């Protein structure tokens, strides 16, 4: 896991990874991305463990919120930094808990780099089976998709998928105000009103005991709902 062995090739893809108390897995997650030659922007969202210190040992762009703000705030911070990086054509977001596969980055960003669309949304419901997805999680995500369709008019099969790609132009125009997980719905709302072209791309997600312990609960759905209603 030495940074000396990491390929230092520059890439037109910048991967924004949000991390909060991910010291157990963050090094492996980042190394997988670095091995593919992509630029990495890590936003440590005020972790209280050694997440930040671990990241300092890797060749990544490293940002740290002085306090914990939430996944939405970390995403927006990472995007605002990533658009300033020279040579970047596509910005991909990923979670720091290891549920997303680095091998999915290039296929997801491909339609954006090719100029076919401005935004590509990862979807777990387009034929590729995700490893160990619990039934309750599936139900939760389908309900979220239904609610998002109802409130935004945009028909996305998996709006709460943390893996998405966007062009530099699209990323420069996004200004999220939701600090929590409601930012996923806010992105879809923004997408519906911005007029930007978009497409869903099937991706695989691996559910580990670790990622499931950190994922969204049923109760958090109510938080998201209230955040969206009383923003």
């Amino acid at each position, binding site marked *: 896991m030495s*940074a*000396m062995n990491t390929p*230092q090739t520059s890439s037109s893809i910048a991967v924004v990874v949000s991390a909060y108390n991910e010291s157990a897995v963050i090094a492996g997650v980042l190394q997988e991305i670095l091995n593919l030659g992509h*630029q*990495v922007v890590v*936003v440590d969202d005020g972790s209280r463990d050694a997440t930040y210190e671990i990241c*300092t*040992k*890797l*060749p*990544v*762009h*490293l*940002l*740290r*919120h*002085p*306090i914990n*703000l939430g996944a939405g*705030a970390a995403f*927006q*911070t990472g995007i*605002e*930094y990533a658009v300033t990086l020279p040579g970047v054509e596509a910005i991909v977001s990923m979670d720091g808990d290891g549920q997303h596969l680095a091998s999915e980055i290039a296929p997801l960003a491909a339609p954006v780099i090719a100029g076919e669309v401005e935004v590509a949304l990862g979807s777990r419901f387009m034929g590729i089976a995700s490893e160990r997805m619990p039934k309750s999680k599936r139900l939760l995500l389908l309900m979220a998709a239904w609610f998002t369709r109802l409130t935004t008019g945009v028909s996305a099969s998996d709006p709460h998928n943390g893996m998405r790609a966007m062009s530099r132009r699209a990323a420069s125009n996004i200004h999220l*105000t939701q*600090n929590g997980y409601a930012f996923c719905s806010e992105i879809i709302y923004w997408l519906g009103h911005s007029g930007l072209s978009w497409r869903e791309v099937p991706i695989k997600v691996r559910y580990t005991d670790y990622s499931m312990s950190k994922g969204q609960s049923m109760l958090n759905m109510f938080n998201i709902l209230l955040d969206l209603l009383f923003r």
Partner: protein
Amino acid sequence: MGGILIKLILILLLLVLYQVYRSGSAGRRAMGRFMPLIALALAAIAVIFPDLTQDLARLVGVTYGANLIVYLSIMGLLLMVVAMRGALTKQARDITLLARKIAIDEARPASHKKTESNQA
């Protein structure tokens, strides 16, 4: 006597509200600070002149003065909750923007690590 007092208080309140409306956010901030004092003054008037609240209640279609005070108190509390929520939301947004600025200004670029590796 009571009727004249009620009219005077209502005129005074309208003048204060008009002034707050004209002076924008500074006026609203000042109003927020003076609100407890105003509430205290109104409570004192209600105790000293109990007939006054009764007259005021009848004027607005409420049977008893005590009821009117309860209704006004509940309305005041609700207004306070809404105002507090608005202020807290704005504060949270400001904190987010500040934290973001700090994070971006103090970002460690990837080249930082490369330089360290090269020196090692």
